[in-house]
């Protein structure tokens, strides 16, 4: 519970223009290979950022660096004015997801609760701290309501669909009322209807809670209406700007150092052509 107080007390004194995340000339090297470098990024409160790029380009690495899970080889990252560190309750994190096994028979509500006090040592004593227990239950309920998961929050999580599990995991990330939401491919492995549903939930949360959202995605189209800016990572280079600025034939061709064509369909969807070979080779790399 103690980890909540900074979040709660920090909320009212948000200076309108001080960035929640400040990345200065950052680089990450893993196993001697530079993943990306010279990254300059400043995220404002309430901003919705999509992190795009081919597999293995280092999208998840960027999230993990902000979470303090991966050290930088150069530069600095500060989160809410402090250096990035592991276990920061101001960031709600949903990692890249494999599903819960069907035999995990724990109700979703308990899994959401873990976001609140899962790392605390000792056991809670509800009969001694009634107020605290009630507050915790209320917080969990609030997060479940935010993602619209009330109908199945008490069912075993292993029996739920991918979209339902994803919503509960977002609720788990939300339960500390974070200033930043870091979501790693939350729409992957969902069908189209659930992709739109979960994307809508994330957009609504960012509007209602004022949290900045960093969302790693494979396909920009389901989230296109929601995003403010795009961070596009390819071949160690990073381009940042609005979707109209970044996802263009010129910018992507420069990033990939190979001709790329960006097409916009009549219904506003974006199609990127010409990176198939790249995708395949990155795929092979990712499998190791």
């Amino acid at each position, binding site marked *: 519970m103690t980890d909540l107080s900074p979040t709660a007390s920090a909320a009212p004194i948000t200076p309108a223009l001080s960035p929640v995340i400040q990345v200065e000339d950052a680089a990450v090297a893993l196993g001697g290979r530079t993943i990306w470098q010279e990254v300059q990024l400043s995220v404002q409160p309430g901003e919705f950022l999509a992190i795009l790029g081919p597999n293995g380009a280092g999208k998840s690495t960027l999230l993990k660096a902000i*979470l303090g*899970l991966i050290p930088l080889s150069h530069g600095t990252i500060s989160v809410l004015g402090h250096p990035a560190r*592991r*276990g920061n*309750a101001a960031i709600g*994190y*949903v*990692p890249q997801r494999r599903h819960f*096994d069907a*035999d*995990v*028979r*724990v*109700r979703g509500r*308990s*899994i959401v609760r*873990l*976001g609140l*006090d*899962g*790392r*605390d*040592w*000792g*056991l*809670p004593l509800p009969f001694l701290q009634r107020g605290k227990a009630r507050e915790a239950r209320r917080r969990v309920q609030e997060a479940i309501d935010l993602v619209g998961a009330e109908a199945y929050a*008490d*069912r*075993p999580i292993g029996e739920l669909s991918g979209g339902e599990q994803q919503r509960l*995991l977002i609720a*788990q*990330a939300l339960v500390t009322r974070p200033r930043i939401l870091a979501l790693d491919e939350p729409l992957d492995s969902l069908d189209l209807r659930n992709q739109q549903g979960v994307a809508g939930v994330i957009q609504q949360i960012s509007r209602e809670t004022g949290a900045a959202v960093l969302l790693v995605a494979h396909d920009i189209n389901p989230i296109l209406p929601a995003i403010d800016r795009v961070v596009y990572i390819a071949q160690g280079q990073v381009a940042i700007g609005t979707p109209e600025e970044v996802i263009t034939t010129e910018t992507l061709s420069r990033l990939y150092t190979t001709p790329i064509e960006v097409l916009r369909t009549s219904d506003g969807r974006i199609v990127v052509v010409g990176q198939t070979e790249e995708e395949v080779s990155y795929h092979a790399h990712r499998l190791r």
Partner: protein
Amino acid sequence: MPIAFADTLSPSWDLVADIQILLHYHFMQNAYLAGTLVAVIAGFMGYFMVLRSQSFAGHSLANVGFAGATGAVLFGIPSIAGLFVAGVLAAVGIQTLNLAENNRQSDVAVGAVFTASLALGFLFIALATSEYAANVYDVLFGNPLGISDGDVVIIACSTLVLVGAFVLIARPLFFASIDPDVAAARGVPVRTLGFVYLVLLALVVAVAVQVVGVLLIFALLVTPAAIAQYVTTRPLVAAAVAVLLSLIFTWIGLAVGYFTPYPVGFFITTFAFGTYVLVRSGRFVLNRVRQRWLASPGDSSIGGAA
């Protein structure tokens, strides 16, 4: 007087009298005391084992105890110490072999450690003389009726340590078990907890072996927890149910074992297994009925088959 009781060694419908008969002898008092302590801690431990899908690791770690116990006999140290040392060594081995795997246990590493330790136990038996043959049976299947006062004290102290440790790490361990990636991001020391868990498991095994033996320990560790998961999805309640079931199996197993000429371990295991089968099949039937109900009344036969 004991002879008079031996004549009336059959249970009546008078429950109070039965319990009096049951607890008349000191060895039975010790058996119940030790059995109760072991059941409590094994049930709780088991919940995490099922949650972590580590029942194979648990089973293997228990079997490693075989080498520990036979080695203890050979080197003349207390068997509980031998069991614990062997278990901790195996935990270190499993953890080291798994370092490459990302926060997950690999069955291959566990199996390799497990088989190597069985071979070692085999060697220890061969080195020891034949008079330990009976001892091997006790290690494999337990001998709850031969628990001394000293054993009870050791079991009680170990239980105290285990309960304390579990209360301390229960929540982070639960988090790390169910979702290691998020737990790690939240600052939970996932890998350290995984190792601490295996060490605690080694201690549970060392303590429990006297009651149920290394081969039958599964009945108290995994089966009650597996049943509990089908009864409730609330973690604390499930752990409590697992403990309760563990207790019931042990108590009834000891009683039936006392009133019949057959071994206690058999009854504990069989009650656990029987309940597991009952709950699983009950669940299956319930799901079928529910599906039939949910199907529209018009084509209930099709809905039921789907």
